[in-house]
């Protein structure tokens, strides 16, 4: 199967590859997938004043999965939490020109975004609760 140029570009030059410390303030971590399924995605966001100031990923999976998560980090940066919630897997499919068999890789990226946001929210709520 031929890959789109954008997938190849993200694969060869992944954006924002790496990790934040999970317990760092303002960091939300989402880890989705399973090794048995052949794909695991870790996506992290760093939030300040409700805005995502930085994002990082690490992915075990095919080229399309790596590209989807790389693209997701690019898109997340600078977005507010609310805006980030609106990123859809179909946007990723469109941007990367993913063929039907690779749609689940983009679903995984959306799941990872949601999981990272939820983790951030949970931590933020925890901090608030502690403060009270």
């Amino acid at each position, binding site marked *: 199967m031929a890959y789109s140029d954008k997938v190849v570009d993200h694969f060869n030059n992944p954006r924002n590859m790496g990790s934040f410390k999970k317990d760092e303030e303002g960091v939300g971590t989402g*880890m*989705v*997938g*399973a090794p*048995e399924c*052949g*794909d695991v995605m870790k996506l992290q966001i760093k939030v300040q004043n409700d805005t995502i100031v930085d994002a990082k990923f690490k*992915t*075990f999976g*095919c080229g399309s999965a790596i590209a989807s998560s790389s693209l997701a980090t690019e898109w997340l940066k600078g977005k507010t939490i609310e805006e980030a919630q609106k990123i859809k897997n179909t946007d990723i499919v469109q941007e990367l020109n993913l063929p039907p068999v690779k749609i689940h890789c983009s679903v995984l990226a959306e799941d990872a975004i949601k999981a990272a946001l939820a983790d951030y929210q949970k931590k933020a709520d925890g901090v608030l609760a502690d403060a009270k």
Partner: protein
Amino acid sequence: MKLPIFLDNHSTTPMDPRVLDTMLPYFVEKFGNAASRNHAFGWAAEEAVEQARKQIAKLIKADPKEIVFTSGATESDNLAIKGVLEMYKEKGDHIITSSTEHRAVLDTVKSLEGKGKAAVTYLPVDKFGMVNPEDVRKAITEKTILISIMLANNEIGTINPVKEIGKIAKEKGILFHCDATQGVGKIPVDVQDMGIDLMSFSAHKMYGPKGVGALYVRKKNPRVRIAAQMDGGGHERGMRSGTLPVPLIVGFGKACELCEQEMAKDTVRLIAMRDRLEASIMKALEESYLNGHPTNRLPGNLNISFAYVEGESLLMGMKDIALSSGSACTSATLEPSYVLRALGVGTELAHSSIRFGLGRFNQDDEIDYTIKKVIEIVTKLREMSPLYEMAKEGVDLKSVQWAAH
């Protein structure tokens, strides 16, 4: 050195230029139908076919009359299994095969099973991918009419104890079919010594043309009979109708002759290159695991799983090397390799496997390049892998609750 490099010689092989040379006259000049008995065009074609039949038979120690031409090993497997079942159905309907056979065998027996025409036993293999002959013996019932076990596996290269299985088949009076597609031309094959009654193989896996193969059908001790699966002009002694593709058959014959002459030389070269590839990769990359048998394996085969990285991404990172992977992401079914699963290789490692298939035309500098590329890409993708990171942090990946999707 030219890029891309072809290291996928189990899928097919490039044709030897010497094979092409022998084929060329049979397209335009000597185009006759080998079944035309009444003129010189037909005689020339028939002579060429008979010459090829001899070359092919010689390689596997058979009689030329025992060679039935087909379109390839898929057809040979179908013809052998369906042909025997139909011919001997009064005797029984039980077939013994193994879980790591090629799909040309597995899907054939499954389809027969599904239609209620056969009862099938799928033997397990050991962790190296080998069938235990004693398992074959134990699986035999009074209804067993066919044992179908492959010679060498197309993914892991493991060579089965075919001779022992042949002996048991003979002892019990059961026909033995062997899918030897990956073995013929690469390792010595002797249908007498191995006790094989029917054997499938294909020209394009041994530097011959695509679209032609053969089924060996034993003529004596015992005389094996099969029911034709295609009706027509009764070619190939009634077993396989259809005008013979003379140029392809001529090429097939030449390919067999070359394999016979060059097997010893090719084997030494291939083993040296393969072992160097294996040793260099394994030394440089921790947690890489060999799949298949450490020694009892095809000379050109190497199958390795690289923990924490997924196979399709590995292939993508080595675009200028043609390889294949057992990863689900590369398969249409999104299931990882059933062969690796049958050896007990964990699903994660099955996703991480790469098959290197070396052949006659590979050169040392291509191996050097491949070693370098593999080490580079595995290292790069491990840096990118959350699993590798966790493992480095000491997390036991098996203990993690994964959010499976």
